C-alpha cells in the first residue's frame, strides 16, 4: 500500500523543487533544496526514510504549505468527513425509504417515477449541479448563505475538539455558530447527497425486492402480521445488508466527489488538498493524503462490517 502510494506520487510529472525555488534560483540553489528535502538520494532510500517516518507517525512536511502533512490532514480531513457524513446521512434518509417504497410499489408509476428521479440525480455532473444551485439558491434567490466554506467570514470557529464544526459548536454551546455552520452545510450536503441517493435507492429497491420475494416474508405474512409491519420491521432489516455495503462504496464515491464540491464551495477539505498536492507535485502531502484516505476508507469498511454483523447474525458466527 505504502509502496504503491510512493510510486504513484513519484511518477507524477515535474518536480516540486521548481515551485519551491522560484524562477530565479540557480542550479546550485536547486541542488541545495533537493538535498534539504532529501530528493537527491536514490528512490529506495527515500522510500525507506519515508517508511521510517511513518513508523514514528511522521508523514513528512508538505513542500507547498511547508507544514507537517499530519497537521495539514488533521485540519483538512474533518471538514471533508463532516461534509460527506452529513451528505451520506441525508442520502440514506431519502434514498433508502425511496428504494423501499419503490420496491413495495413495484411496477407501478410510483416505482418508475422514483427510479427516474434517482437515476436523474446520479446522472447530473456534480460540479454542474453545484454551480447551478449556487447561482440559483445563493445568488438569485438568497436561500442559502454564500459558499465560502464552513463558516461565514467573520465568525470565530469554536475550539476544535472533533474538527466537526457542528459538533464543536454544540459542545461549546455556541448556538449561533452552530446555526452558521449548519447553514453553510445545506447546499454542499444537498449536492453530494443528490448523487448518493440514486445508488442507495437502487440497492434498497433491489434488495427489498429480493427480500420481499423471500420465503420467510411469505411465512411472516402467513402468520397474520400486518403488511406494513412486515415491510418496515421484518423485511427492512434483511434488506439493509446490501445497502450497508453500498453505503461504504458510496462513501468512497463521496470522498472522491468532494474534490469537485469543495472547490466550488470553498470547503477547506481534503479533496482540494489532494488536488493541490497532486497537481503541485507535493509528494509528502499526496502520499500522506492517500494513506490517510485509505485508512479512513478502511475504517468505514470496518464500521460497515460491524454494522452488518449487528444486523445479520449469520456474519457474526
Amino acid at each position, binding site marked *: *500500500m505504502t509502496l504503491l502510494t510512493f510510486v504513484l506520487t513519484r511518477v507524477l510529472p515535474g518536480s516540486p523543487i521548481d515551485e519551491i525555488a522560484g524562477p530565479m534560483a540557480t542550479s546550485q540553489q536547486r541542488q541545495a533544496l533537493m538535498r534539504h528535502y532529501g530528493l537527491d538520494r536514490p528512490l529506495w532510500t527515500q522510500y525507506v526514510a519515508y517508511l521510517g517516518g511513518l513508523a514514528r507517525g511522521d508523514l513528512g512536511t508538505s513542500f507547498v504549505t511547508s507544514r507537517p502533512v499530519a497537521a495539514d490532514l488533521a485540519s483538512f480531513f474533518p471538514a471533508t468527513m463532516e461534509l460527506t457524513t452529513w451528505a451520506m446521512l441525508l442520502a440514506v434518509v431519502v434514498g433508502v425509504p425511496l428504494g423501499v417504497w419503490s420496491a413495495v410499489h413495484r411496477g407501478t408509476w410510483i416505482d418508475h417515477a422514483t427510479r*427516474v428521479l434517482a437515476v436523474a440525480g446520479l*446522472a*447530473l455532473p456534480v460540479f454542474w449541479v453545484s454551480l447551478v444551485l449556487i447561482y440559483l439558491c445563493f445568488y438569485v434567490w438568497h436561500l442559502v448563505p454564500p459558499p465560502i466554506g464552513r463558516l461565514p467570514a467573520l465568525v470565530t470557529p469554536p475550539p476544535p475538539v472533533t474538527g466537526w464544526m457542528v459538533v464543536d459548536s454544540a459542545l461549546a454551546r455556541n448556538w449561533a455558530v452552530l446555526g452558521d455552520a449548519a447553514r453553510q452545510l445545506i447546499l454542499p450536503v444537498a449536492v453530494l447527497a443528490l448523487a448518493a441517493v440514486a445508488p442507495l435507492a*437502487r440497492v434498497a429497491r433491489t434488495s427489498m425486492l429480493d427480500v420481499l420475494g423471500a420465503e420467510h416474508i411469505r411465512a411472516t405474512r402467513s402468520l397474520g402480521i400486518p403488511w406494513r409491519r412486515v415491510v418496515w420491521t421484518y423485511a427492512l432489516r434483511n434488506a439493509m445488508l446490501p445497502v450497508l455495503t453500498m453505503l461504504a462504496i458510496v462513501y*468512497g464515491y463521496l470522498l472522491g466527489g468532494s474534490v*469537485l464540491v469543495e472547490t466550488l464551495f470553498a470547503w477547506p477539505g481534503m479533496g482540494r488538498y*489532494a488536488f493541490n498536492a497532486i497537481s503541485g507535485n507535493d509528494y509528502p502531502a499526496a502520499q500522506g493524503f492517500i494513506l490517510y*484516505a485509505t485508512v479512513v476508507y*478502511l475504517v468505514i469498511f470496518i464500521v460497515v462490517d460491524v454494522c452488518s454483523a449487528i444486523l445479520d447474525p449469520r456474519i457474526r458466527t
Partner: protein
Amino acid sequence: MFADAAYLLRRHPVSLAGVLLLALIAATALAAPVLAPASPLATNPGDALLPPSPRHVLGTDDFGEDLWSRVLWGGRIDLLIALGAVAVALLSGCALGAVAGFCGGWIDEGVMRTMDVLQAFPSFILAMGVAAALGPSLRNLIVSVALINVAIYARLMRARLLVVKHAPYAAAARAAGNPPWRVLTVHLLPNCLTPVVVQSSLQSGWAILTAAGLSFIGLGVRVPTPEWGVMVAMGVPRITAGAWWISFFPGMCIALAVMGFNLVGDGLQDLLDPQRR
C-alpha cells in the same frame, strides 16, 4: 429476443426510454459529420458567446464555436470514452477475475489483494492521481477511468466464477475430458457474463461522469476537443455571468447519456434475472 424486447416495451417503459435515449445519442454521434452545420473546431472571434438563436441553435462558446456542432461531435468522444473505458476495464478485469477465481491459491490471493489495494482508494481520487501521472490526453483519460473499474469487474467475475465453478456442469465438463483451460473458456466464462454485462452498462454512465469530473479539474482531455465534460468545464465560469448555455447543453447531454446507460442497466438487470420479472 423479440419476445424480450416486446416484454421490455410493455413492462419497462422507463428502460425502453433509456434504450431510445442511447440509440438517439449514438445515432446523432455517428451522424455528426452530416448533422453538424460547422466544424466543432471552427473558431470565430466575432461570434463568441452568442446565446441560442436560429443561426446557432445552442449558441456559441468563448471561441465562437457552434455549440450544436460541438455537442454532436462530443457524443462521439464521450461514447468512445465510456465504451473504451468500460471495454478496457471489462477485458482486463474479467481476465484477472477469471484467472484468480479459476486458479485459486496464491494467484487468487495475489490478484485479489492487488484489487483490494486498488479499491482501497476512493475511486475518483485514484483516477485523479493516475490521470495526473499520465498527463492529459484522450487515451490516458480512458486508461485512468478504466483503471478504477478494473477491480469491480475482477471481483464480479471471480465471485460469479466461484459459483459456477462448483456447478455440476463444471464437474460434468471435467468428467467429459475437458482440460482446465477449456472448462474455463468454453463452459464457465459464457455463464459468468450476465452480471458483467449489467455492470458495464451501469459503469458506462459512471465513466462519462468521472471523465467529465476529471476534465473539470483540468486532468481530462485537452481543449478544444469537443468533449462534453471539457465543454461544461469551459462554460462553468460563464454561468454566473449569464452565459448559461455553454455548459447547460453539454451538461444535459452528459446527464441524458448517463441516464440512458443507467436505465438500460436497470432494464438489463431485470431482463437477465428471470426471478425479478
